[in-house]
């Protein structure tokens, strides 16, 4: 249903069945992206700045409790609520479908943080400080943010740009799995899969196609068109309900019609899983895509 903005669209699938809640992704994200450590006092005031956090959803009552771990990160929405409200274009859409956050432009009105349904935009309330040896361990590829600006998950844009440059230098396309964000790299159970949604042969596209019947978008009633797709558990299809309203993934299947996300009765509200009538393996991906073999040349004008 969704048309991609450009030739590239980076995306991620999050398999809730596989997530063990180990939080390795959280730590990897902090290390990769120079996320400031605010300290216990500020954290107790609710100013922790994890770009990626694990939502714990509890089901049932005491003897029969189940917990689902839902990694919640910036959904890199196709129609992002944060972008239209920023008065200074600090929050912009990039050519390859990311939600860019430009720290130098940000003046800290925090309206994007209010408008984000996922609560993944973090604000620097205090000046970041690192104890003396620690500032030498910062990642040189990532800007350090100052007090008063917004920051959020970038899909590790520095790695994506590095991949673009490498591909361009070697005059080839970006390989599947060449670019992996820190969280995907750290995920032991491979719950997170990252890649190009525009490439039907990429691992993320294949993963999505194999699990189409359990793929959901969080808060799709706002029609934000996220590019992070959650795969809800096989054993309990209603497991993601507390994060409701969830919309069924509409993208990349031509027969799904052109309805806007949240307005048609999606089967996720019913207790039975929403199984597509068509066989999963034989469904033709990228029916709406202009070409089945998208031209994966190096990204023009990447910087």
């Amino acid at each position, binding site marked *: 249903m969704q048309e991609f903005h450009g030739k590239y669209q980076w995306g991620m699938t999050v398999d809730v069945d596989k997530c063990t809640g180990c939080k390795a992704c959280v730590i990897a994200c902090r290390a990769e992206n120079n996320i400031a450590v605010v300290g216990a006092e500020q954290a107790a*005031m609710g100013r922790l700045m994890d770009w990626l956090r694990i939502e714990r959803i509890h089901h049932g009552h005491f003897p029969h409790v189940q917990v689902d771990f839902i990694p919640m990160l910036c959904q890199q929405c196709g129609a992002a609520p944060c972008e239209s409200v920023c008065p200074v274009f600090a929050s912009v859409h990039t050519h390859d479908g990311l939600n860019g956050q430009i720290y130098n432009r940000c003046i800290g*009105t925090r309206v994007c943080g209010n408008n984000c349904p996922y609560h993944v935009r973090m604000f620097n309330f205090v000046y970041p400080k690192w104890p003396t040896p620690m500032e030498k361990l910062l990642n040189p590829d990532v800007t350090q943010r100052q007090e*008063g600006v917004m920051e959020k998950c970038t899909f590790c844009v520095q790695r994506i740009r590095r991949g673009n440059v490498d591909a361009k230098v070697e005059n080839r396309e970006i390989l599947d799995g060449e670019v992996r964000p820190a969280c995907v790299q750290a995920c032991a159970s491979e719950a997170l899969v990252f890649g190009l949604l525009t490439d039907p042969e990429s691992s993320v596209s294949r993963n999505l196609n194999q699990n189409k019947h359990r793929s959901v978008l969080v808060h799709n009633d706002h029609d934000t068109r996220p590019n992070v797709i959650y795969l809800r558990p096989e054993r309990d299809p209603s497991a993601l309900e507390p994060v*409701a309203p969830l919309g069924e993934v509409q993208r990349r299947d031509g027969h799904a019609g052109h309805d806007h996300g949240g307005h048609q009765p999606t089967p996720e509200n019913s207790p039975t899983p929403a199984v597509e009538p068509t066989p999963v393996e034989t469904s033709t991906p990228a029916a709406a895509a202009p070409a089945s073999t998208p031209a994966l040349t190096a990204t023009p004008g990447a910087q």
Partner: protein
Amino acid sequence: MSHVNKNFRAAEVSIPEIYDACFEPIGKSGWRSNIVILLSLCAILIGALAFAGQMYYGLGQTGLHIPVYWGGYIITFVFWIGVAHAGALISALLRLTGAEWKSAVTRVAEVITLFTLPAAGSFPLIHMGRTELFYYMLPVPNNRLLWPNFKSMLMWDVFAVSTYLTGSVLFLYVTLVPDLGIARPRMKGWYKTLYTLLSWGWRGTAEEWKRVMEAAALYSVIILPVVISVHTIVSWDFAMQLVPGWHSEVFGPLFFVGALYSGTAAVFTMLGLLLWTYPSFKKVITPVHYDMLGRVWLVLGLSWAYLFFNDFMPKYYAHIPDKIEYLYYNGFGPYAAATWFLVIGNFALPLFCLAFQDFRRSFLPMFVLSIIVNIAMYIERVFIVIPGLEVYNGLNFNTIPYTYSTTEIAVIVATFGWVIGGLTLFCRIFPILPYWELAETKARQVEVDMAGVKVNYFQAGE
């Protein structure tokens, strides 16, 4: 005979008496106003220090945290914007509808706008993470080769508030010029110099009067759409977002009517203080004015109540889960006491009291009621801003409640000091009552004997 005295049109006050009443406070420094100005200066100083601390240490000095990104600053911004609407209502609306009793209260309302609007406009800047870069929001050529995002409602806010500030200052000044010109020969010392400079050589010729009247009428027409747009746009700051309790179609009219409601309350507060400070004003500001303005207040209160309940009735009927959670959070959660104070202080009590003419005509009860309504309207803004952010969307991410920090309180109190001290200072330097409008109303007053009953009416103006 008592009912005759109720009629302002038969008020026994001559034009020289009006002049004496209007210009009585000029140049006199009572101890009461000295104390008020001194306290205001202290408040402003403390607030400036607090703001400097916030600039130095960062927004961590406030009570904000990650889901609740907007707090006390934005609440007070909306509150002051609302109070600033007094000027538009009283001056422009009543001027256009030809309500002759307006003369006594127009300038009070305009001066309230003059001081509350800068107080309001400072808050978005104070609340910014990087205040020093506020000019990124101005559409000026820059090395980043970027325009601001005209799709953002915060940009509309910038334009709306600055337009309204410019317009209301001009509106006030245009109607102030004849008074300055008239009083100039009778002033002494530096007041004479000031009045001479500011009156631009006013001589009182027919041509000048014609221009002033035309300008006042023109400004009344121009400023009304501006004023409606300002608070509607302020409401869109919220209504354009996805937060439950904010994302509401009725916010535009609700904010606008609420602004007029609280603005009128502020005018009553100011009138009460003026009558207490300068008893000679009672010659000019009579119970009739209170009665008429009280009726306007009553109508605004009813409209506000309709829109306010209209705001959450559809949410209740629709039974959208997060909206229902929002409603229960408001009515029975940690904000229950504030919510019910809001309902009583803003709706039940004023609308009951204002229904009685005797209440509307009494100065002290109206003053007390205006204070209650102002507090309740402030709480209404808290009610609008905070709970929606705290219950947002069921991702149980962070449930820490928001509280005002010391820095926020100091900065907010400083703006109260700015408004109160500024109004006090204005009353000592400029005539707070519009002498020429009152004199004009008096001069156009004609008494006719109709079958033994004396009837006062006004000749139509040109």
